[in-house]
């Protein structure tokens, strides 16, 4: 079977196993509108306009409103759009898995990630390990947990706060830290600088960082999860701050998701996470490019 066709079969198995994983654990599969009046504004994510609305950059706003309405465990597989993102690991329209759980924090999500990786690997016959771009990886192994601060000192040779202050954070992340996360077990990079977590709760014992983490496997960034901020006033001021930064950089300010802000005080302590499904398939297919795991690239349309 041709390589890409084989990968689309694998993709279907991955989607099926994700649904099985969550339904067996009592998560409700939900579908929320893809076209919304406002996304959560992000400094570096540009939404695509659709008439007088936007295509979602993530299903987070609607899913968090469901948490506010008393849905306790939900998941969704949906398409998301982010303008101008095209590269070896990016297509502007991609598939996102998001799941949310109330009365939980980001540590519970870390465990979910581990359990999900193992589950999907076994469903795809990769329970004994995979080879990704020449590196053998045990998806069932317990993940290495490292704080962003440790990673910056250890691999970046610079203090995390100093990197935030001189705006070199992203470049060091890409050139020195991500390549160091391509080992033989999954890696959880946790406790991001407070400035880099627009919707996450600040860590109670250390106000400099937020309870946010990223899951890396084979150097691929797979998922971003955090303990949810549920203080509407704090959330509003962060959105305003984000829009200010956007405008300083010459990007347009974005409309704010008002109903979300109005309902946010009803959100129980919760945690939520977004995982790139295309990337997960890349990993299992040993694909160097995202092009190899989608039915159509934007250029083929």
């Amino acid at each position, binding site marked *: 079977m041709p390589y890409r066709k084989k990968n689309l079969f694998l993709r279907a198995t991955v989607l099926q196993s994700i649904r099985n994983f969550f339904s067996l654990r009592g998560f409700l599969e939900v579908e929320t509108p893809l076209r919304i009046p406002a996304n959560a504004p992000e*400094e570096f994510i540009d939404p695509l306009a659709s008439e007088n609305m936007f295509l979602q950059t993530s299903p987070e706003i609607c899913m968090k409103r469901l948490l506010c309405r008393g849905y306790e465990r939900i998941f969704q597989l949906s398409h998301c759009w982010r303008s101008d993102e095209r590269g070896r*690991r990016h297509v502007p329209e991609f598939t996102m898995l998001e799941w949310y759980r109330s009365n939980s924090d980001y540590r519970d999500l870390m465990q979910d990630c581990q359990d999900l990786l193992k589950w999907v690997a076994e469903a795809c016959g990769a329970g004994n390990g995979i080879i990704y771009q020449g590196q053998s990886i045990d998806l069932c192994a317990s993940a290495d947990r490292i704080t962003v601060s440790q990673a910056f000192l250890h691999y970046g040779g610079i203090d995390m706060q100093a990197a935030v202050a001189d705006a070199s954070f992203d470049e060091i992340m890409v050139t020195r830290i991500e390549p160091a996360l391509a080992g033989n077990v999954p890696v959880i990079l946790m406790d991001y600088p407070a400035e880099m977590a627009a919707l996450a709760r600040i860590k109670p014992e250390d106000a400099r960082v937020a309870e946010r983490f990223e899951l890396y496997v084979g150097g691929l960034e797979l998922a971003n999860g955090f303990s949810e901020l549920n203080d509407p006033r704090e959330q509003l001021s962060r959105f305003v701050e984000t829009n200010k930064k956007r405008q300083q950089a010459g990007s347009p300010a974005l409309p704010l998701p008002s109903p979300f802000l109005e309902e946010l005080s009803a959100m129980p302590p919760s945690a939520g996470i977004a995982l790139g499904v295309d990337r997960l398939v890349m990993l299992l297919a040993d694909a160097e490019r995202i092009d190899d795991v989608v039915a159509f690239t934007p250029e083929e349309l």
Partner: protein
Amino acid sequence: MYSVADLKKGLKLTLDGDPYVVIAFDFTKPGKGQALYRTKMRNMINGTILDRTYRSGETFEPASLDEREMEFLYKEGTHYTFMDQQTYEQVLMEEETLGDARNFLLENLKVDVLIFGEKAIGVTLPNFVNLRVTQTEPWAKGDTSGNDSKPATVETGYVLRVPPFIEEGELITIDTRTGDYSTRVKG
């Protein structure tokens, strides 16, 4: 002016006054961070390879490169002289700038000379050139050593492997892209 959106393999741009060609390119965006464009570029004059990371909004000067057909006239010391047959303009190129191309340059050969500003920075050869073998061991009939090739020197001084039946004085065709023997020119 180029923007980061124009970056791709093969793009030629000017950096610190020198022409560079992009040889590897990757778009990255770490964890909700900014878009970063990682490139590997080769200096088209001295071959130095450079890693550079760019951010949205940065711009680049294109490299104004011109390619002109010229004839190789002669070599003097380490200088190679080429002439534009139309304008009779002559340009000089150093041996090290020419790199491996010098192995295949025979007087009167027509090549494409790459010009950056006023400076000749490289040549594109025809894919195949014919050169005469000036030195090689004779073919020992009944040779049982099992060697299916032997070294031969051609008139430019270049040494390559040729089949054992090639004799001194014969004309052979060489693939300039690989530097390998291609065929024997009959007659």
